[in-house]
């Protein structure tokens, strides 16, 4: 085997593992590495995983049920007008798939997500179930202090549940581990921006998503291997338009949809799983670790349609993504029945109408299983872009 086919084999093996993890249930407590005493579920978008990590609870993102879950209970408990990720998350709770969680934390990103806490309180009173009230105002003085108080509260709750004290040193240790992971994720995205033919959006997504089912330190090892192999890939660059993909900040587009986009475009930046990449630089490893995490949420953070921040208009950050990744166009998606996503989709489209940047509007649902029409739309879009560039 020459080294290039060896790299390809490594990458394939890692990606296959990641895909298995994507489809796997939450890890069984018995199968966890020794330092973990349980799992803590958290809903998108951002959650300070370091605090759970330091408490010996494996943070697992609860990302809905994808397109293989049959809803048997949730239909009767959540209206058909609620987004799929909320309904399938409720289903996973009600069908017992999340029984092993020590707790489930949701966020005030939207009203549907806040309701999940009520559903949990009514149906699973034995689990810790909470809304972590991250603020929608991060611009007033006092925001960091408030977030720090909220994180302290979470720290106390997790200490109680895990039976393990979380001292500052343990938190700093966890911050270091996550900083390393964040660096690697930034490298992953830089590779896609600079040499997109070496790593597709689907591949990058699978690699990132693996962190939702494994310890962060193990995920970093996995990322290092994958990155090294991808960098050495000798695939030829392809004649595809460079696009930015937005709208995957909460409910996740099906993998088949990402593959359809990859078949036609180079996705040079996206907001998929943005919560896992929310902190955009290293969290300072010195000083009060809770304060540093809180401050990072405000000062070193990404953007999404469900976080208000006067410094980052939604159009502004889309344009920054397009500019920084030298994209030719944008794919503007929204999850069906996701009110914030649908509002943003209109705003983005109207904004791009005033520029010479082309865009394609797509609506998705995590549970969708038919992609032919979407593939055709993408093909036509990509062709028109290439034609426009060539002309």
């Amino acid at each position: 085997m020459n080294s290039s086919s060896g790299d390809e084999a490594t990458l394939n093996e890692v990606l296959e593992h990641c895909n298995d993890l994507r489809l796997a249930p939450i890890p069984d407590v018995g199968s966890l590495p020794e330092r973990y005493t349980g799992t803590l579920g958290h809903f998108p978008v951002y959650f300070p995983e370091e605090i759970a990590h330091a408490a010996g609870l494996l943070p697992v993102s609860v990302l809905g049920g994808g397109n293989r879950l049959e809803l048997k209970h949730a239909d009767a408990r959540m209206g058909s007008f609620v987004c799929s990720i909320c309904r399938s998350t409720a289903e996973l709770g009600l069908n017992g798939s999340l029984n092993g969680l020590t707790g489930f934390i949701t966020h005030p990103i939207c009203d549907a997500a806040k309701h999940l806490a009520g559903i949990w309180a009514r149906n699973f009173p034995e689990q810790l179930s909470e809304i972590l009230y991250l603020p929608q105002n991060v611009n007033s003085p006092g925001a960091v202090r408030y977030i720090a108080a909220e994180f302290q509260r979470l720290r106390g709750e997790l200490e109680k549940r895990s039976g393990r004290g979380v001292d500052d040193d343990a938190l700093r240790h966890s911050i270091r581990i996550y900083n390393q992971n964040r660096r690697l994720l930034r490298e992953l995205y830089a590779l896609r921006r600079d040499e997109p033919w070496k790593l597709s959006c689907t591949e990058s997504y699978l690699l990132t998503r693996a962190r939702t089912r494994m310890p962060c330190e193990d995920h970093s090892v996995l990322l290092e291997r994958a990155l090294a192999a991808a960098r050495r890939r000798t695939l030829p660059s392809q004649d595809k338009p460079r696009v930015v993909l937005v709208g995957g900040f909460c409910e996740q587009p099906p993998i088949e949809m990402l593959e359809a986009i990859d078949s036609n475009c180079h996705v040079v930046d996206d907001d998929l799983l943005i919560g896992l990449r929310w902190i955009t630089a290293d969290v300072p490893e010195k000083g009060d670790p809770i304060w540093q995490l809180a401050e990072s949420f405000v000062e070193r953070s990404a953007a999404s349609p469900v976080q208000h921040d006067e410094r980052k208009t939604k159009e502004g950050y889309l344009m920054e993504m397009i500019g920084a990744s030298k994209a030719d166009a944008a794919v503007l998606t929204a999850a069906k029945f996701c009110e914030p996503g649908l509002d943003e989709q209109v705003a983005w489209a109207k904004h791009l109408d005033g520029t010479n940047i082309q865009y394609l509007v797509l609506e998705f649902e995590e549970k969708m299983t038919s992609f032919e029409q979407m593939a055709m739309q993408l093909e036509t879009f990509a062709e028109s872009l290439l034609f426009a560039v060539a002309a």
Partner: protein
Amino acid sequence: MTGKAVGAAANIADTAAAFDGRIEGQRLMRDWYKALEEAPARGQHVANVFVMGNAVEILRAFDFQLVFPEINSLQTGVRKTSEEYLRLSEDYGMSPDVCSYVKADVGLILKEHEHPAGRIPRAHIAIASNMCSTFIKWAEIWERLLKTPTFVLDLPGQRAGNWRVRPGDAQHAADARWVEAQFQDLIHRCEAITGKRFDLDRLAEVEDRVNKMVAHWNNVMALNRVCPAPYNAMLDGLTYIGIMNVYRGTPEGVAFMRNLEAQLKTKVARGEGRVAEERYRLLFSGTPCYVSMRRLVELFETWGGVFAYSDYLTFAAGGMDAGDLAYDTSRPLESLAEVTALAAQRGLSNQFFAHERLAQQIRDYAVDGIVFHGIKSCRFVSSGMADTRDYLNKRLKMPSLYIESDLIDPRYWSDAQIKNRVDAFFETLRQSGGAPPAGKSVPPATGRAA
């Protein structure tokens, strides 16, 4: 009692009896729209606010003219013109699946602010709280289309089931500190916009009036615990709450609430109910359908069913009706933050942990059943409704009905279907030996004196 005193008491009773909350409420609403139209000519600064978590007390202290875009939207429904506004915004690109209040407002912007009640002035600032997440997305639309500066007021809500926060405890203190920090920021922004210095005495004055209004409002709510209920929470109550919001902290608001309480007390003393023969006391959970509310209420009242309470009257007034919330006007700003933090949690918990408050209200208002009104485009009230219903059915064996329509979109009102469901609900209540004619005895009102 002297002859003079007897005469005075009779006069008060006559005045109270002559007061009609709905007619007076409609007059005040017309006055408000007139004031809106004339605000630019007066050179008055204008603020857009929502009904929940809005810092109205601070804005009034700066003399802002208040615009309530939710009320503008619902008024398009009441005046049967909403469809035109909704279609305009859908043609613009808004999804059919988003809040119809937002869409009606986008339609209003596209119609150059021409509202059936008059021209709505453009705002100099908008306050959007996180109590309903759609408020924030809505305000971002104004930022974008009208360049309205927006202030998001973040009010930490109830974090979990059985969340017990008591005034002054550590959690409440932390939340109140955060709210106060935001108020300080808002005050600076208002000073910059209006060119006026903030006046704490003005704030205290407004708060004193809010205290009075809330005290009367609590008594008004408590009066409906009596059987027969003197008013229908989802018809008369909608006018009352409109005044609670639009005239909050004003002399007109205090007078309205005082007269309303007196009038309803007179009704109760005479044993007069909203319906001639109250047979079923009901609780309405959710938001109204303003295009067909009169019709919906009629479907229930023909069976002798009256809505004695609705959680809408609590959350749409921002959660101030819990009975023990009053501003300490000797420390107006701190107190505003403390009360706002608590009221927000009570207003929010009405929805996100609805089972807790509903279980209490079922007892307080001695209701025979709950009517859940799901709104497809309002995730704030509707997302957890089916699960709450299931919980209350199982735990409290409370009969319930679920119907679905929209806030103001007439395309979602299906008269025959809703009538069938309402009739079937009452048939079931009757067959299961529900409340006998002439109702039953319930605890007397226990309000606070204003």
